[in-house]
């Protein structure tokens, strides 16, 4: 029986239990003669309880069984194999098992196995089919039993509602754990691959190396780049592009926020803010296209017209477009921060005869500074993690330079170029992408934690 069919049957059983539970409660109540009022909970609560009893243990069993099925089968089948085969290294044994599975599913490229393998494959086939039948039977029996048990337990005194609600609460709690599991998944999966990388390439070579040339040989008889994994050029490239972006976004975003919150009329603000926020909603791939096809050639021509040599994929072009992208981000954050500065400060300053701009520069800004710094850190973390713009508009060669007119590459570009296409999980080249991912994750995490801390401290100050 296929898993889908089991699911559908389970669903049907679940619905059935619901109606049985509900009916049962009514019947019980009628028998007592007190009507529905004699029940502790409403009839549907009994129904829900029955449905849950039918579904949850069965579902749990199904997931558990499906999860461990292959491992147990492997252990059982391998235990039956001749000792000589069992003594093979794990990888070869795995290969042998894979082939045996192939035989069981009917043919394996026309090759013939040895008699032990053929016998084992027959063994495997029998085990696998009985396991899947047993799984279906067990799951459905558990569901029926669970449902029946719940239905039988229905009495007017049963606290069905509390019962159901307790379970629901657990489900809600489980949902909120998904976020934690995601973080855990990210850290574990990246860390796991990154550790494999650092076994081949020492950590200090990665962190302090000055050369990045990851395209190493993928076959024994091939001669390619020797594979140097110095991460510094990537870091410098990333920071260079992010700096250009921040140099555009911070003045424009901050001044816009100041103007909109301190000077502009309500109507002007109501129209302008959403329009500028469109910039934040534009997908990054669109910015990438814009950067590569419009901005980069423009900057190149502009540079050439004044006699500068500009690379076709200058950090300038990618940075400029990235800056445009984060303008609304800086703007909204600064807007929030500026609005949080108490009006009493402004009024005091204006009352002393200061002009509006003096008030802003001498009073509001110093008060808002920590918050704004936090906002800029958040914007920087955004710029560092941005991928599509740099994939489409920045370069590929890792050059250690701080000249924004040259082409540099970034961490995210390298992750994409290492992973798109050729993937083989035993090659430092692929693993390097995970090491880069790890660095990226921690750098952005650090920036965020610091920024959120700073912003929170700042808020508390005025609350």
């Amino acid at each position, binding site marked *: 029986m*296929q898993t889908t069919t089991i699911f559908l049957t389970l669903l049907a059983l679940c619905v059935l239990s619901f109606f049985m539970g509900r009916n049962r409660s009514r019947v019980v109540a009628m028998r007592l003669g007190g009507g529905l009022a004699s029940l502790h909970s409403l009839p*549907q609560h009994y129904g829900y309880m029955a449905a849950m009893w039918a579904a949850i243990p069965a579902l749990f069993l199904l997931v558990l069984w499906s999860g461990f099925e292959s491992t147990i089968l492997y252990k059982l089948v391998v235990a039956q194999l001749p000792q000589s085969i069992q003594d093979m290294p794990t990888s070869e044994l795995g290969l042998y098992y894979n082939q045996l599975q192939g035989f069981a599913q009917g043919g394996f490229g*026309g090759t013939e196995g040895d008699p032990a393998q053929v016998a084992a494959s027959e063994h495997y086939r029998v085990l696998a089919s009985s396991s899947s039948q047993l799984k279906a039977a067990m799951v459905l029996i558990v569901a029926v039993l669970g449902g029946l048990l719940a239905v039988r337990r229905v009495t007017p005194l049963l606290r069905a509602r509390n019962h159901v609600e307790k379970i629901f609460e657990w489900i809600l709690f489980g949902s909120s754990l998904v976020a934690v599991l995601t973080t855990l998944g990210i850290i574990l999966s990246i860390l796991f691959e990154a550790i494999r990388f650092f076994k081949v390439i020492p950590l200090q070579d990665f962190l302090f190396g000055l*050369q990045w040339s990851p395209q190493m040989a993928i076959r024994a008889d091939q001669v390619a780049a020797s594979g140097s994994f110095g991460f510094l050029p990537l870091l410098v490239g990333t920071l260079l592009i992010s700096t250009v972006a921040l140099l555009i976004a911070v003045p424009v975003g901050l001044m816009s926020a100041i103007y909109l919150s301190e000077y502009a009329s309500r109507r002007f603000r109501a129209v302008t803010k959403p329009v500028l926020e469109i910039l934040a909603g534009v997908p990054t791939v669109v910015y990438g296209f814009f950067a590569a096809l419009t901005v980069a*050639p423009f900057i190149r021509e502009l540079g050439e017209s004044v006699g500068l040599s500009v690379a076709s*994929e200058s950090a300038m072009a990618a940075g400029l477009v990235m800056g445009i992208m984060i303008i609304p981000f800086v703007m909204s954050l600064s807007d929030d921060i500026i609005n949080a500065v108490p009006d009493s400060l402004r009024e005091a300053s204006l009352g002393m005869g200061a002009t509006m701009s003096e008030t802003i520069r001498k009073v509001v800004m110093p008060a808002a500074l920590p918050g704004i710094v936090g906002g800029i850190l958040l914007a920087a973390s955004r710029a560092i993690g941005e991928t599509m713009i740099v994939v489409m508009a920045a370069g*590929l*060669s890792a050059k250690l330079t701080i000249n924004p007119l040259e082409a540099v590459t970034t961490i995210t570009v390298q992750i994409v170029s290492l992973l798109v*296409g*050729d993937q083989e999980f035993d090659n430092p080249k692929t693993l390097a992408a995970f090491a880069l991912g790890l660095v990226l994750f921690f750098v952005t995490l650090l920036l965020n934690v610091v920024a959120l801390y700073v912003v929170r401290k700042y808020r508390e100050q005025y609350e």
Partner: protein
Amino acid sequence: MKNCLIGAVVAFATFGSIHSVQAASRDSVSIVGSSTVYPFATVVAERFGRSTDFKTPTIESTGTGGGLKLFCSGLGTNTPDITNASRRIKMSEYDNCQTNGVTDIVEVLVGYDGIAIASSTESAQLEISLNDVYLALAKDVPDADGKLVANPNITWKDVNPLLPPTKIEVLGPPPTSGTRDAFVELAMAGGAKGVPDLKELSGLGADQVDEIKAMMVKLGVPLGVYEALAERKGKAPKGKDVFTTLAYAIREDGAFIEAGENDNLIVQKLQANPDAVGIFGFSFLDENRDKVQGAIVDGVVPTFDSIAGGEYPVSRPLYFYIKGAHVGKIPGIQEYAIEFTSLKAMGEDGYLPERGLIPLSGAEFIQIQDDVKTLKRLELQ
């Protein structure tokens, strides 16, 4: 309360659809491999999908080496059925296939491609020899005393006084690419043989250990290279092996930029930067005649005829490999191969030559069509 019921149904349906995935089977052909064959394969796939009832094959461009690695990783629906290659399968890859149970491989030669050394149409046409290419791009080149030193050449003029004084900036493919393999084998090694000492080294046999070592000393190569090779091969290396190690190594100081698997990207970058030189398949040059021009290599202009005639020194065959065990299990594999090798596609007036593929000669063509029909098994010794 109805909401809850709906929610439960949705949750169930979601779980169910995720679980049913494992049982789902694949009914479209999955193709990976060379970015040079990719444009031809996609055209064939598109016509195949439009003119038959089969699903259109899914094609990913992963590079020849990457494709063969995926292809040889085993049998089953989560491995590709066909891989494109811009060079022949290597013995090591063939062995890898065999150990992973991919024993039944059908090799299909589809035509030829030249490797163009090209620059933007805005710059002057380059006229270079293979030796110039070697001197510009090798990691180590001979200095005045004939000793190999780290490549000091910065401009093309340093390489050959007849060339322009522009900076050497070459965009080329990474090692996953067949173009790279073909380029180092044909252009770099070809150019290195212009250095007499290296040429002599390449001719020495495995038994001439002393001669090899003497030549290595003469070239200023540390003898550790020899030992490392011996260790890796498990036996005494030939002069050719040492030569390969020296000649195939491309410089890593930024003059040669590995531009990923995407040949289109290289064309775009050349257009933006007139001083740069790009290395990619002839079909891309042909497609983009309005943007880039091919360099004259050893006096031969890369054209359709010069490549088909074998005069152009940097040309190579293109292949694809079929996983025999998948034929019949996944619908459309053989039919796709038949479409690829039909007269309509591969013939001299077919739609592939129109796109820049250099067609096979008559006898080769008939042989290949026959191989595809009988699914002739590839045997490498």
